[in-house]
């Protein structure tokens, strides 16, 4: 098992290197330079000023040297500074990570808490009223554009009904509130974005749960359980669900990088300073140190998530265990 794990971990290194190399290449192939934002179409900025800034930022170096320099720093866990505001990329990320992880974790838990039961109950009688009703509902969430749902939610719950704030994370006088009030204030601001993200996320998972469950309920051992006279509840949740959840482990593993990758659309509409906007703004500004740092960490988490899913799978399903038998 340890050997297997080591082999898998070592295997990650070339994949990760490849990903960074390709990202760096794509970044450089895209037209535009990090200095554009401050210099371009600014008649007060002369060509000389531009050349000077590029030299200061090391952008006049040949590409392979730029890449190797970056790689050398990253090997020492140094992601350098953002071109946009001169701060350490690590600081920028750490500042935004808590918000994004909180929102994503909340949405993920809610999605699981709602989608799995939805799928299970829909699977009991496929094609029944409940199944059809939930299908329509989750597919509305899945097919409607997220930004539109978000604006609709703001317009109705934020503007017309005034139940929740329109956007942002904190009330303006947040800092003057007591600890408890501050927590409540933030939670109150998070209701709409988390709610919309949950609604949008329901479809995929509930479909997986439903089809997994339908599959399982056709199995012989379920018939056996029924024949033994077990209660329907026990059949569904003890014998059925545990087996139906197997594919969901994979989905959970794949959701790991999603935890830190914020949604650009939601963060923009709800004015939330999260990872999605950090990444989007960095790409738009060709802020390569930030882009490369986020791509690398994202890739690493994706790879680790896959590995974790494989391991969890082996743990949950004896049929695919490696090694010791």
């Amino acid at each position, binding site marked *: 098992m340890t050997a297997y794990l080591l082999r898998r971990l070592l295997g990650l290194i070339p994949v990760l290197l490849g990903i960074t190399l390709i990202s760096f290449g794509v970044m450089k192939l*895209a*037209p*535009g330079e990090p200095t*554009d*934002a*401050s*210099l*371009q*179409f*600014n*008649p*007060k*900025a*002369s*060509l*000389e*000023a*531009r050349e*000077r*800034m590029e030299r*200061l*930022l090391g952008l006049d170096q040949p590409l392979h040297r730029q890449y190797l320099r970056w790689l050398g720093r990253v090997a020492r866990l140094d992601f350098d*500074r953002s071109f*946009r*505001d*001169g*701060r350490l990329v690590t600081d*920028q990320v750490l*500042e*935004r990570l808590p918000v994004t992880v909180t929102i994503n974790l909340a949405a993920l838990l809610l999605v699981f808490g709602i989608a799995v039961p939805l799928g299970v109950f829909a699977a009991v009688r496929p094609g029944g009223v409940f199944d059809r009703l939930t299908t329509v509902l989750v597919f509305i969430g899945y097919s409607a554009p997220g930004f539109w749902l978000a*604006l609709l939610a*703001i*317009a109705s719950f*934020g*503007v017309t009904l*005034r139940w929740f*704030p*329109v*956007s*942002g*994370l*904190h009330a*303006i*006088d947040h*800092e*003057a509130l007591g600890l408890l009030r501050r927590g409540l204030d933030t939670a109150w601001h998070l209701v709409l974005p988390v709610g919309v993200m949950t609604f949008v996320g329901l479809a995929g998972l509930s479909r997986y749960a439903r089809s997994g469950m339908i599959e399982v309920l056709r199995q012989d051992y379920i018939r056996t359980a029924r024949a033994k006279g077990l209660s329907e509840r026990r059949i569904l949740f003890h014998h059925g669900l545990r087996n139906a959840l197997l594919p969901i482990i994979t989905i959970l593993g794949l959701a790991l990088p999603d935890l830190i990758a914020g949604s650009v659309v939601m963060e*923009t*509409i*709800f*004015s*939330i*300073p*999260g990872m999605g*906007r*950090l990444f989007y703004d960095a790409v738009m500004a*060709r802020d390569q140190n930030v882009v490369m740092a986020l791509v690398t960490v994202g890739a690493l988490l994706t790879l680790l998530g896959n590995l974790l899913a494989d391991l969890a799978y082996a743990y949950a399903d004896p049929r695919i265990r490696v090694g010791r038998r």
Partner: protein
Amino acid sequence: MRRRFVRYAAALVAGLAAPALLAAQSQPVSGDALVVSSIGDASRLLPLLATDSASGDIVGLLFNGLLKYNERLEIVGDLAESWTVSPDGLTITFVLRPNIRWHDGAPVTAEDVRFTYEKLIDPSVLTPYSSSYQLVESVEALDPRTVRVRYREPFAPALESWMMGIIPKHLLEREDLNTTPFLRRPVGMGPYRFRRWNTGELIELAANPDYFEHRPYIDRYLYRIIPDQATSFLELLTGQVDLAGLTPLQYRRQTDTPYIRRAYRKFRYPSFGFTYVGYNLQDARFADRRVRQAFNLAIDKPALIDGVLFGLGTAASGPYPQESWASDPSIRPSAPDREAARALLAEAGWTDHDGDGVLDRDGRPFQFTLITNQGNEVRRQVAELVQQQLRALGVDVKIRIIEWSSFVHEFIDKRRFEAVLLGWSLSRDPDLYDLFHSSKTREGEYNFVGYANPEVDRLLERGRRVFEQEERQRIYREVHRHLAEDQPYTFLFVPDALPILHARFRNVAATPIGIAYNLIDWHVPPEEQRYRRMSP
């Protein structure tokens, strides 16, 4: 009799009370907060490094320059109490106001000015503004309040360059300006002091009680970052934002509700910039001035303004807004005249020989591609209207919309275009050297249309060397005349700036320089104040 007395008394009371009431209304009381909505976040809060508009907004309240523009666009002293330009134009001497203090209490001195200049020309500082100071020979602090700047040659835009915010030497002397923590905790001497910055969310400033003019009445300035315009508008509808920019559509159609009419005031004034169609003058067809003149006559500018900006703009006749002293008032935006345009094109050899509805010359139809950048809805619509209007003239225009970076790098910089639809927003000084001088045509420079007129070159050079306003006015009005005649661009329109502000703020007016020039004099009557008083 008695009734008459009552009436007299009432009149008397009213007569006495009216001025008292007026006085009560105009006597400003401090307090409250101004909540401003911005699409983008600031990046570095230092005047030398502030390049985006958000950083510029904040830096403008934290730092002052030696000079500034007043509401009539005249140059007046800011930190400088007075300034003199030597008769040869080579020396400018500034005398600072007495008793200006940094927010930490240290005095602002001539040494700070010298330090600011040194950092502006320091090659290790990431400032894009260094070129404005290339002609400076020396900056000397003669005494704590007097600075003398010497130039190698006279440079009139220099005055505008001294509107750059001055930075504190005692706090930055030992810092690397590109990365110093000061960029996120700035200390200035402006009307507001820095309080906090929650990245991507909010920047809070507090009134500076020691500001040299007077303490601003509005206690707090809250800059909320709301990246989506629709969200910003919804925040407005719930009263959570006091000041925001509107789109023409929002200004005309969506803000006409009873609530907005009651709670807000809309303002409108011409922005300092213009939208234009530029032609690649190396292209033989556009090298002929008559063709450009014909296009200017064929494009119906009022129709563009009505169709795209809902009427919220002014037709342009040249690079200066009508309010500018540099604009020649005798040049009016041309009235659309398709027949005259057709005649000019015929003169240039363009007629419809084969009767297919498209003009041709030497058997080749008049066809070209108009490019513009992606993500600007106004420009896309303008391009379509221009296409339609030139089509009526018999010119076949194709539109191509290109992502910004490749638009600039692959098409503009390399001059791979036939015609381009773009906008300039310029500083208040009328110097157009970078845009129209024939030397500014290298890759990455801004005379990308390739305009070359020796007379305009001469005027632009001269305009940079004289300081007297009347002489400069004469020069730039002549530039304006040449540009209107030569039409290197078809100057289309000047869009209006459309801010909306909560009605509780008093003493606010739209002027050519905007509404915020007298922010420190804005105030809110106590009974209308919304945000709690600032804790000291």
